[in-house]
Every structure is written in structure tokens, then in C-alpha cells.
């Protein structure tokens, strides 16, 4: 039992006219209001309580001193101000597990002070108690209405703010340290990577992380923008909810705005698919824009060229698997290069030729250690040493036969996914065949793809197995490592990008950046519509959305206006991150965009408003569209929520 000094205006107001209030409280105090209102009937009970001994059910924790109440600061939640605790003497009858409470003294003492309100947990003494013990399971929590909305807004905005500083060409990186063994460190400014590694408990925040992941999978870039935009949309929505606009109205406004923004972009989109020369320069620009916010920005031209070359080889397929990225520490980023052939990170077996011209390659996935008998239950049982030797001989014979069959294909290079033991390796060396063991699965598939061979597992009909071909196989050195290089391959699609860099962190980040660029480019090859960058698309959308807001009657127009503000937040953030005067710049930009056909965007390098088409900053339409749509979708989802029910986390066995 404890008392609250009536410093809380809401509570005091509710208790007006009563000297003493007894309320029922459950652990979470969410039920306090209804019972304060009904407290008149409880007053009578108090009269009863004050005179007689009341038997009370225990359901309360007991501490060492016999104080049977939780600490008020724990239970009182929002009303922490001026909490004063009264510890009450209670007889604790262990036999009946019931607690007898003597109220008399306490009541006499405090009845004279009208500013005190008692809050007593009465559980089930009074017959009219509507106490529901609990609906949900232990530790499950429930948040309702405004609080739920608040919790999701706050969580989502926190996530958006977290990645906000990485946006734009002058965005900063984050260091991520894993909690696992080794505390490995990642340095990145890729939104999806940052968010993926966070451990988040807030449900709304998880929605944002999810959209960033999907953005990564679908278009590869814009992972930060989508989260920032969703965060801004929610920030605006919060203000609107604060001014008593129903979330559903906001949602319908956002939907109209998103549709309008999409149309505005479609109007302004450029498509240079027919003009190969221009298309290539578009790709270069997009690649450079994407790379400029990454660690590769120093050598963005070099890497943009690499990426464009690699993607052009794919000829429209979005299968990035045929672009292999090999990371080798050492050298500088500038030393990275694109190789038209295929590089396998393996060594050539001992005593085998280091260089083969006009190679016929057999790509296989077969056991080259001991070829087991696969029939179930077969086992070797012998009774003498001699028989062991015989069977061993037979096994060897079997292997020799297999190798002979393989050699019979007329090959001079054999690549296997599984191990090759010494014995067959020796046989291959004798036949002058290059044998490569233990190429991983991806490597095998890719090699089969580029050389045009098939992955074989049986070798009985050499005439029908398709062999792979390449002009030259040789061992090359990159840094200190020896790699096998297949050049002059048949299929022109595949290529390898070798990344060089000072440290593994740099290489990892470079790979991520390059991957982003490759993804965007490969998507652009399919959907060649292009937009300008540097905040230009956002301003175009904002302008269209603003116009829509003016035309729309009703409360929706507030939401539409808010949408345009959220859009402008992206160029604002870009400018802020670059340390520029964002208010000034964005205002200028707005003014510029008032004219027809304007190409103005933020030129972060000079810190002013510039012509984006002259500066060569472009973005892919597909990326922008995905950002717009999924951010709106996510914001909508979070806005619709009015209750959060969290189940108790599953208990893990402590492994200590």
C-alpha cells in the first residue's frame, strides 16, 4: 500500500470530492482510470476496512522485511512524481496463505490529510470486483492506442535517424562490432548492412529493417533512402495525429500523394535505350552516382567503368552470379581490375602443367577419394590380411578405371568439386592433366557456365559429355597469392572483378559498394528509364504533391502536404550531412523548381544548387520508384497499428 501525493493533475481531478480513494490496481496500472471513477462505492468499503480486520488474499511479493508490496516506483509507471511510500505492518499467516491487514492506524493518520490518495490493491475482497486476473500469459505485454502508436513512431524514427547520417555523398560511415566471438568489426555506410546487424526489440523498427532488406534484394541500392523516407513520413504523421487527424485519413492522403509522386516521376523520366552510346553514358552516370556515396568515391570513375563493363557483358540478365568478385588484400583500390576470363582461387596440383593452351575442361562433381559403395548395408568383412590387400587393390583398380575413363574424355584439365586424393592426383599428373580439387559449388557452377561444359558425375559415355573449352589456363599471381586464370572462355557473359585494397575492412566495404552498383546497373539494363539525382527527383515529386494538396478538399490535404515535406527531407538530409546550409539550399532549390523543366539539384561538392544533367548525376527510375512505394507501404503499415501485443520472449537455456 502506498500513497500518492496529489501532484498529478489528472489523478487529482478525477478524485475531486473524495478524501480517500481506494483503487484497484493491477500490476500495470492500466486499469486505474475506470476504478477511480467508481471509487464512491469503494469508500464504503474503506469504512468497513477501517473498523474491521480485512482478510486479504496474498498475491503480492514479500520482501525481506515482510513488506508485501512492490516498490511503488516500479509499479506506478507514469505517475512517479512525489510518490511516498508507507510501509504497512501486516500479519502474514503462512498457514492459510492469507494476509491480514490492519488498516486502522494508517487510515486514522491519513484521513486528516485530504491531499493523500490511497491506492490499494484490493484484488478480490470486494464482491463487485471486476478484477480480471490476467488475460495474457506471463510477461506478455500489451500497449494500446496512443501509447502503441507512440512506441512505434519512436522506434521507427530512431531507426531512421540512425542511418540518416550515412545518406548522400558526404554521409558518414558506421562501425559495427559483432557480439559474437572475435568481435569482428565492419565499417560500412550501406543502410541494409547496418540495419541487418542491429538487434532491435521495437516491432515497428523491425518493419523498417525489413523494407531495407527487401530493397537490397530487389534493386540493391537506396536502402538508406527508403528507411529515411519512411521515418520522415512517420515523423510527419505523428504531428498530424497530434493535431487530431485520424490515422486512416493520413493513410489515404499518403496513398494519393504517393501515386501522384510516381506519376510526376514517370513524366520526367528519360529513356535512352535506343541510343547505345547515350545509354552507356547513362549507366556510367548512375554507377558514379551510386558509388560517390561509398568508400569507392575516390576512384569512382574507375569503378564505374568496371561495373558498367561487367554489367554490359551480362547482356540483360540480372544474374549477378556470373560476375565474380575476388578480394585480395594489398595494393590500392586503384589496382582493382576487371578480368574477362575466369579466376579460380585454387592452386594447381603438384607436378602438373602450370600452363595449358586450348584447354578441354571437364567439370565434375564426383568422389575422387575412395569411391564408396552406396548400396545400403554393404560393408567389408575379411578374415585375413591378404584379403584386405586384395580388396584394397580392387579399390585402387576401380579408381584407376575411373581416372582412365575421365582421361578418356580427351581432356587436359579436370576440375572437381570434391576432394581429389593423392592417388588419382598422381594419375592425372602422369597423364599430363591439370587437376583442380575442392572447387566450391559456386565456383563449379560458374566455371561450367563460362566454359560451356556440363557438370558431370558419371563418366561412361565420353562422347556425349559436353566439355568446356578455353584458350588458356595459367597460374597467375595477385599480390602473394597464386590463382588459376582461365582466359579466352567461350561464353562472354562471365567476368571476374579483382578488388585490391589496403585492408579487409576496405575490401569488404568496397565489395558491398560495388555490389550495389552492379545491382542497380543490372536492373537499369532491363528498365532503362533514368532520372537525375542529387535531390532532383524528390523536389519534382514534392512539387507535384504540393499541387495535389492544394487541389484536394478535406483533411486529406494536410496529409498530402506532409508527404511533400517528408520528400523534401531527403535533399535536406543530404545537404545537412555535407555540412551545408540545408534551409538555404532547399529553399533555393524549391524556387528553381518552380520553373518548368529545371534540372536543379544539390551539388554537394561545391555546396550550391547546380544543374544535375551537366554534373552528370543520375539515378535509376526503378530504384526511386521502389524507395517511394515501399517507404509509403511501411509507413502505412505502422500507422494502422493501434495496439501492440508482445509475447514473452522464449526462454533460452543458459549454457553456462
Amino acid at each position, binding site marked *: 500500500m502506498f500513497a500518492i501525493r496529489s501532484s498529478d493533475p489528472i489523478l487529482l481531478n478525477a478524485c475531486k470530492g473524495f478524501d480517500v480513494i481506494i483503487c484497484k490496481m493491477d500490476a500495470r496500472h492500466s486499469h486505474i482510470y475506470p476504478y477511480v471513477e467508481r471509487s464512491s462505492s469503494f469508500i464504503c468499503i474503506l469504512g468497513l476496512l477501517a473498523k474491521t480486520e480485512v482478510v486479504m488474499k496474498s498475491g503480492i511479493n514479500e520482501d525481506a522485511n515482510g513488506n508485501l508490496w512492490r516498490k511503488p516506483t516500479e509499479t506506478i509507471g507514469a505517475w512517479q512524481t512525489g510518490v511516498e511510500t508507507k510501509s504497512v505492518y501486516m500479519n502474514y499467516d503462512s498457514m492459510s496463505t492469507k494476509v491480514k491487514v490492519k488498516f486502522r492506524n494508517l487510515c486514522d493518520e491519513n484521513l486528516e490529510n485530504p491531499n493523500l490518495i490511497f491506492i490499494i490493491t484490493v484484488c478480490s475482497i470486494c464482491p463487485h470486483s471486476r478484477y480480471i486476473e490476467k488475460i495474457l500469459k506471463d510477461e506478455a505485454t500489451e500497449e494500446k492506442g496512443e501509447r502503441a502508436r507512440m512506441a512505434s513512431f519512436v522506434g521507427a524514427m530512431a531507426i531512421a535517424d540512425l542511418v540518416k547520417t550515412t545518406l548522400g555523398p558526404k554521409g558518414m560511415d558506421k562501425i559495427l562490432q559483432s557480439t559474437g566471438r572475435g568481435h569482428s568489426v565492419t565499417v560500412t555506410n550501406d543502410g541494409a548492412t547496418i540495419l541487418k546487424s542491429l538487434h532491435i526489440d521495437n516491432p515497428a523498427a523491425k518493419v523498417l529493417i525489413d523494407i531495407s532488406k527487401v530493397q537490397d534484394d530487389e534493386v540493391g541500392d537506396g536502402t538508406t533512402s527508403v528507411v529515411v523516407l519512411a521515418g520522415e513520413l512517420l515523423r510527419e504523421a505523428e504531428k498530424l495525429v497530434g493535431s487530431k487527424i485520424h490515422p486512416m485519413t493520413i493513410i489515404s492522403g499518403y496513398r494519393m500523394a504517393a501515386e501522384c509522386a510516381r506519376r510526376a516521376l514517370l513524366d520526367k523520366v528519360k529513356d535512352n535505350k535506343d541510343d547505345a552510346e547515350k545509354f552507356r553514358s547513362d549507366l556510367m552516370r548512375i554507377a558514379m552516382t551510386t558509388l560517390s556515396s561509398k568508400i569507392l568515391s575516390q576512384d569512382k570513375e574507375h569503378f564505374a567503368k568496371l561495373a558498367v563493363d561487367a554489367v554490359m557483358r551480362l547482356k540483360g540478365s540480372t544474374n549477378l552470379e556470373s560476375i565474380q568478385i575476388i578480394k585480395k588484400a594489398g595494393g590500392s583500390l586503384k589496382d582493382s581490375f576487371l578480368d574477362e576470363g575466369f579466376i579460380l582461387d585454387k592452386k594447381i596440383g603438384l607436378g602438373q602443367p602450370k600452363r595449358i593452351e586450348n584447354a578441354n575442361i571437364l567439370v565434375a562433381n564426383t568422389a575422387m577419394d575412395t569411391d564408396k559403395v552406396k548400396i545400403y548395408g554393404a560393408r567389408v568383412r575379411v578374415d585375413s590380411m591378404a584379403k584386405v590387400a586384395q580388396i584394397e587393390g580392387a579399390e585402387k583398380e576401380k579408381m584407376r578405371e575411373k581416372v582412365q575413363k575421365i582421361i578418356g574424355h580427351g581432356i587436359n584439365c579436370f576440375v572437381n568439386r570434391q576432394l581429389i586424393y593423392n592417388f588419382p592426383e598422381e594419375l592425372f599428373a602422369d597423364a599430363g592433366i591439370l587437376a583442380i580439387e575442392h572447387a566450391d559449388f559456386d565456383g563449379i557452377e560458374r566455371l561450367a557456365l563460362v566454359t560451356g561444359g556440363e557438370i558431370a558425375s558419371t563418366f561412361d559415355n565420353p562422347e556425349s559429355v559436353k566439355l568446356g573449352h578455353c584458350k588458356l589456363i595459367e597460374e597467375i599471381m595477385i599480390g602473394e597469392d597464386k590463382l588459376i586464370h582461365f582466359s579466352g572462355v567461350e561464353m562472354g557473359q562471365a567476368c571476374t572483378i579483382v578488388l585490391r585494397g589496403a585492408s579487409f575492412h576496405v575490401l569488404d566495404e568496397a565489395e558491398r559498394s560495388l555490389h550495389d552498383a552492379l545491382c542497380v546497373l543490372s*536492373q537499369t539494363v532491363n528498365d532503362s528509364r533514368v532520372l537525375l539525382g542529387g535531390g532532383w527527383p524528390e523536389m519534382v515529386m514534392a512539387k507535384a504533391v504540393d499541387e495535389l494538396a492544394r487541389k484536394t478538399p478535406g483533411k486529406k490535404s494536410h496529409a498530402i502536404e506532409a508527404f511533400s515535406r517528408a520528400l523534401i527531407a531527403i535533399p535536406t538530409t543530404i545537404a545537412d550531412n555535407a555540412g551545408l546550409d540545408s534551409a538555404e539550399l532547399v529553399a533555393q532549390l524549391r524556387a528553381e523548381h518552380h520553373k518548368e523543366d529545371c534540372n536543379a539539384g544539390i551539388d554537394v561538392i561545391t555546396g550550391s544548387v547546380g544543374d544535375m544533367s551537366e554534373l552528370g548525376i543520375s539515378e535509376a527510375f526503378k530504384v526511386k520508384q521502389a524507395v517511394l512505394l515501399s517507404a509509403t507501404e511501411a509507413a502505412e503499415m505502422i500507422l494502422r497499428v493501434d495496439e501492440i501485443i508482445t509475447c514473452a520472449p522464449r526462454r533460452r537455456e543458459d549454457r553456462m
Partner: protein
Amino acid sequence: MALAFDEYGRPFIILREQESKSRLRGLDAQKANIAAGVAVSRILRTSLGPKGMDKMLQSPDGDITITNDGATILEQMDVDNQIGKLMVELSRSQDYEIGDGTTGVVVMAGSLLEQAEKLLERGIHPIRVAEGFEISSRIAVDHLEQIAHKFDFSATNIEPLVQTCMTTLSSKIVNRCKRSLAEIAVKSVMAVADLERKDVNLDLIKVEGKVGGKLEDTELIYGIIVDKDMSHPQMPKQIEDAKIAILTCPFEPPKPKTKHKVDIDTVEKFQTLRKQEQQYFDDMVQKCKDVGATLVICQWGFDDEANHLLMHRNLPAVRWVGGVELELIAIATGGRIVPRFQELTPEKLGKAGLVREKAFGTTKDRMLYIEHCANSKAVTIFIRGGNKMMIEETKRSIHDALCVARNLIRNNSIVYGGGAAEISCSIAVEAAADKYPGVEQYAIRAFADALDSVPMALAENSGLQPIETLSAVKAQQIKENNHCCGIDCNDTGTNDMREQNVFETLIGKQQQILLATQVVKMILKIDDVISPSDY
């Protein structure tokens, strides 16, 4: 109470360990139960209607579900209270039986309980209340029958069905493209429906989702999609006029079930065994080839060698296909599932016009489309969406829409939505109340009040004045004798649901009233709750 005395005055125990059990009796028990039921229904109340809000649920593993589907919310809420669990079951049974209206049924039950409590306070016996409710539920159901409309549709005119599905979808997050989704749902149901028998087997409609793209990309595929790819990366990605062998035996060496051992003790045995093994693989593949299959779909895995042999013989194959999918493929292609290679015959092969592999996005996700099947009675709805939660929610919404369409095919009567049916029932029940002598009259009136709570919640959620709106609509219904007046949730300016095209199925509504009444009756009849106490 747990201690009684026999005729000699000796005490004996009726309820063992009563100290450790908490017990509620009589009116207390009923009130506590009612309070619990009401608390559950209150959670769902805000989710009702086109402007209802969603709930975010975090599972013990941290997964998030965002939904406004009543059954899903309750299922994932981890309800502990006994009566709460009854409400969960209530919503679930509505889901199983009808598939839609899972929120409405709980709200209905909650308001019935609220009304019952008032009656109990007046000293009316719970059983009389229950009987009164029973009578009135019958009145309401009969009345619904009277006001229901027959709804004409045919395989060519599906517009009415689409309209009804749209009503269902409009309360979900997917209402942005409810038109296209409703069409997809109706088309898929029509594709698998047996219009003669008025039966629809929803198992034949597979709902598959893949993250990415946008909701508008959701499509209906007359065929099957399997989330698998070819077993060998170099197999052809597209097969036309495929003849499919559907196998449940692995391409692996045989594993006899009886325990056995093959002992190898001589070199000869070793070699024969080896030969047999090779022969075995060869036979398996040859068998498939012999019957003319051009695609093998297998429930189990392949041995590397077998895999290559398949590839080699130009026989594309898919491995590790799940049992359910296998069945669907068999139904769709008209093939038979073959458990043994020996039993493979040309007649048992399934036929499909086109089988192709399709890749998505920048990751290497691939799916296998089996289209233009011999028997087009199996369809797949393929959902795309911005994130996983969106897809899950869309799946649930589509499920609801499918159920509605199915119900309409079973029974083509509809009533008007937007609370119109409830208001109309309420008026009918109210009018009937006066005819009953006895205490039940009060219960019947209370039932009428409870019926009002659904339109009331609708109005509340849409931001209208609940009492004013409801009384206006009610007055209008009585004055114009027009049972199509409902709550105008979308602010379209008319409250005639016929104009707004807001329909619900008759059986769905009837089921709601019946189920809710049943549960309330059950709760009212409880007068003693004995539960083991935790402390």
C-alpha cells in the same frame, strides 16, 4: 465448502488441496468470466470495419505480425485466461466455418456479455438470460433469411462476386488494390469450383508469396508454382508440353527396410556390387526415359551420379518437392504419384503445357512455374509485396476473400453490410420482444441492444458520432422500411448499402450470430471456477 460432514459429524474433504486452488463461485464467477470475455472483445473492437486499425503482435521468437484479422490476432495473442481462450476458439471456429467475420463475431459476443451482466445485476437468473438470447438469436437468423437477397451470377458474370469480395478486402491493408485482388480471388475460386455440386475445394488454390515487387504485381496463375529449382544448374529452364513423372522414391541406392548386411569378402563381390550399383542408377533413369517423361518431380533427393545421369539423358528434374505441393501438381497435371520406379507407366505421367523457371530480383531466388496444365482445376495466387509482413497480411486477406467467394457459390444469398443487417435484426428482435411474456423479454431486448453494438463500433472506428449515427440510421430503416441502410464508413454521402455495394454473405452473418450466442450461453452457465493458483 470443500469440507463437508457426514451423518456422524466427521469431516471429509470434497475438494483436495483447496488451499492451493483459487475458487470463484456464483455471481462472482459469472461476473469475472464476463469481464474476461469483454476484455478480449474490447481488444478487437477497434479493428472492425473499413477504418479499423491494425494490431502489431510480437511472437516469442521476436517475429512481427501486423494484422486486423480477428482470428489471427487472438491466435497469436497468447491468451491465458480460460474465458479468453473460449473467445479465441469462437473466432477460430468462425474462421474454419466461414473464413470471414472473425472480428465481428467476437465483438458481438462481447456486447452480448456486457448486456448479460446488466441483467444479472438486476437479479435475473443466468439460465433465463441464456434462454432469452437463444430465442432472440433464432428470431434474428430467421429475419436475416427474410431480408436476404438472392444473388445471380454465372461463370461469365462474376461481377456480383467481385463486389462482395471487395467488401471483405476493404477493411484490410490491401484495400489499395482491392479491385484487382477481389478479381483474382473470384477467378481462382471459379476456376476450381464445382458449380454443379456448389462446392469449392479451397485446397486446390495455393497461395504463394514472394517478397519484392509491389502489391499490384500479384497475379493469378492457372497452374502451380513451386519454390524450387532444377536439380542440376545446367538443365533447361523451360520445357514445353512437359510430361511429368511425379515420384516419391529417391534417386538413390535402395534401402531395404528389413535389416540386412551385405558382406564383402572377396574382390569379385566388390566388383559385382559396384556394377550393380551403376546398373541401378542407369535403370532408374532409363525407366523414366522409357515411359516418355520429359520432367521428373521427386519428393526426395538425388545422388550426385543420378543427378548427372538425368542431366546427361536430357531429363530435367526437380528434387525435394514437398508432399502437399506434389499432390497439387498431381491434381493439376492429371498425373499420378508414383511410389516406385517399376510402377511408372506412360498413363501415370502428368501433362503441362509449359514449365519454366523464373528468377527474381538481385538474389538468386528462383521459382518453378507449371502452367497450362491438363486439368486446370488447380490454381496459384502469387503475391508480391514490399515486405514479409505485407505478404503475410495479404495472404490472410486473400484467404478471407476466397472464403467469401466460396460461401457465395455454396449459397448465393447475401445481406447488406456496413451494419445494415445488424440494425435490421435489432429492430426485428426488439419488436418481437414484446410478444414474450416472462423474464425472457428483458433478455430479448438486451439482445437487440447487443446487436446494435456492431454498427456502433463501425461508426466509432470511422470517426462518426456513434449514438447519433446509429439512431439516425435506425430511424431511417424503420421509416422507409428499407433494410439496406447502414453506417457510411467511407464518407461517401449515402448510407444505402445497395448503392455502396457493400455485401456480406448470409451464412456468414447467420453463423456469427449463432456462434456468438452459443459461446455467451456457455459462459453464462458457468457458476464455479476452480483453478490451481500459482502462489
